[in-house]
C-alpha cells in the first residue's frame, strides 16, 4: 500500500496519551514520501522522540493510526547503542543476525555497510576504543544492513562536536541521495534541520502539535557553504521565530 501512493510513512491524526494521563502528542498528521527528508524541531519534552517510537512500533498510538512498512525500518537512536562486547563487524551484523540471515550473507552486508560509513580497517575494534563520532557511524552502518526504506533518526549527533556533526550530516545526506529512503530526523538544532531536510516541521510544547511546516527549497547534494547563504539564514530566522512561539 505504501508503494502505491509513494507514502512511506503516514501519521493520520495520531494522539498519544500515556497511561498516567500525560498527553504527549495531540492530533499529529503528516505524510512522509519516499525521497523526502523531514526534520522535526521542537522544545524539549514536546514528544519528538515519541513520534519515532510510534513510527517504529516501540509505542502504540492511543488515537489515530500510524502506517509504515516496519520490515525495512532503520532507526538510529540518540546513543549509538552498540553491544560493547562485540567488535564493530559483529555489531553491524547484529540486525541481520536477529533476522536470521546466514553467516556469509550478513558478513558481506556488514562489510559493505562498514565501507559505506568509512570504517574499513576498524572491523575488529571494540566500541570502547572508538570516538563518539565513530560509534555513531557504526550505529548508522548497522541500520544500513537492513536496506531501510524509512530511516528514523533521533537526535543522533546531538552529543558530538560541531565539525563531526556536520561531517556525519553530509554522510547521511549522501546515503539519502544514493539509497533513496524516506528520512525522519529529530533535532534541537535549527540549522542542522534546515541543512538536512526537504521539509522542516515545528512542534509545540507538550502536548505536541505541528505548528509550522516549512518547505526547504535547496537541491541536493548540499555543500557546506550552503550554511552561509542569505536564503539559508532567512529560512533559519523563520523557523527560529516559529520555534519561539512553540515555547509560548
Amino acid at each position, binding site marked *: 500500500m505504501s508503494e502505491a501512493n509513494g507514502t512511506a510513512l503516514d501519521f493520520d491524526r495520531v494522539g498519544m496519551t500515556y497511561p498516567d494521563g500525560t498527553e504527549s502528542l495531540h492530533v499529529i498528521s503528516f505524510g512522509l514520501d519516499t525521497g523526502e527528508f523531514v526534520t522535526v524541531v521542537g522544545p524539549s519534552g514536546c514528544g519528538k522522540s515519541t513520534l519515532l517510537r510510534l513510527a517504529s512500533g516501540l509505542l502504540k498510538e492511543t488515537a489515530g493510526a500510524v502506517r509504515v512498512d516496519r520490515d525495512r525500518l532503520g532507526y538510529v537512536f540518540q546513543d549509538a547503542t552498540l553491544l*560493547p562486547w562485540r567488535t564493530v563487524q559483529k555489531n553491524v551484523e547484529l540486525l541481520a543476525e536477529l533476522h536470521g540471515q546466514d553467516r556469509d550473507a550478513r558478513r558481506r552486508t556488514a562489510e559493505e555497510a562498514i565501507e559505506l560509513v*568509512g570504517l574499513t580497517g576498524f572491523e575488529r575494534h*571494540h566500541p*570502547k576504543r572508538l570516538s563518539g563520532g*565513530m560509534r555513531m557511524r557504526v550505529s548508522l552502518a548497522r541500520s544500513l544492513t537492513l536496506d531501510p526504506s524509512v530511516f528514523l533518526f533521533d537526535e543522533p549527533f546531538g552529543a558530538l562536536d560541531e565539525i563531526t556533526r556536520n561531517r556525519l550530516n553530509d554522510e547521511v545526506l549522501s546515503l539519502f541521495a544514493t539509497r533513496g529512503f524516506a528520512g525522519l530526523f529529530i533535532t534541537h538544532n535549527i540549522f542542522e534541520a534546515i541543512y538536512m531536510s526537504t521539509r522542516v516541521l515545528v512542534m509545540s510544547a507538550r502536548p505536541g502539535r505541528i505548528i509550522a511546516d516549512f518547505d526547504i527549497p535547496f537541491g541536493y547534494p548540499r555543500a557546506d557553504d550552503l550554511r552561509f547563504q542569505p536564503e539559508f539564514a532567512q529560512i533559519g530566522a523563520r523557523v527560529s521565530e516559529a520555534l519561539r512561539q512553540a515555547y509560548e
Partner: protein
Amino acid sequence: MSTEPIEALEAVPLITEDPDPVVAVHVESRSTASKVFARLRLLSAPAVVFAGFMGIWYLLSWRYLPTVLGRASPPEFLRSIILPYPHDVVNVAFLDATNLGDLLSGLWLDTRLSTFGLGISITIGLITAIAMSQARWIERSFYPYAVFLQTVPILALVPLIGLFLGFGFSARLIVVVIISLFPIITNTLFGLKSADQGLHDLFTLHTKSRWVRLRKLQLPNSMPAMFTGFQISAGLSVIGAIVGDFFFGRGEKGLGNLIDLYANRLRPEELWAAVFFSTALGLTVFMMFGWLRTRLTAHWHESGEPGS
C-alpha cells in the same frame, strides 16, 4: 538498491577524529621486557608493606612481648605461644614433613570442598538469577529465600544440617554452598537486569524471542557483574569450607579442624601456618576469578583495565 560505496565518500578521508586506536595499538606492542618491569613495579609497593609487616612482627615478639611478660615465668615460653617468630613458623610447620603433611592434606580437603561447593553455587546461582530475570513473579517468590540464606547464622543451621546429612563431606559442602550462593545470585541478577534501555529497544524492534534477548544481550551484559559475584563467592567458599570443618569434624581433617586442634594443644607455629594456608587458598581462588574476569571482559568493559 545499490550498495556500492559512493564516490563522494571515497574522495574524502573519513576517519580524522580519533587518535585513540593508534595509541591502543602502540600500547599493545610494548616489549615483553618492559611489561615484566611494569609488573615488578606494581609488586614493589606490596613487597615493601610485607617487609614492614614482618619487621613489626619481629619487633613485637623480640622486644615488646618480653617486656610485657617480664614478670611471668617462664617468659620465653609464653612469648612463643602468643607470637612465635616467623622463622619458627617456617621451621616447625613448613620444614617438618609430618606437620607439613597434615597441613597439606587439610589444604587439599578444603580446596576440594570450596571448589565443589563453589561449582554448585555457581550452577544454582546462575539458574536462579536467570529465572528471576525472566519473570517478575519468580523474582518476587524466590528472592526473600535467597536473602534468608544470606542472613541465617550458619551456626544456627548446624544441628539441622547434621541431622539431615550427618557430619561428613556433604554437610561441609552444604555450608560452603549456603555461604557462597547469595552474591552469585544478586550480582548476576543485577547484571542481567542492567542492560541499557536503548539496547533493549533495539532487540524489541528486531526479535520477539526472549531466549535470543537473554543469550545475545542480557547474559553477555551481565558478565562483569557475574564474575564479580563469582569472585566474592570464591573467597566466601573458602571461609565456608573452614567454618564447615569446625562444625563437622568427622572423617578427614580440614584446615579448620587443624586450627581447632593446634589451638587446643598450644601449637602456635602450626596454628599460624594453618591460618597462612587458608588465607592463601582464599586468595588464590579470589585472584583466579579476578584474572578470569579481566581476561573475559577487560577488552570491552569500561571499568575493566588490563592488570587491574
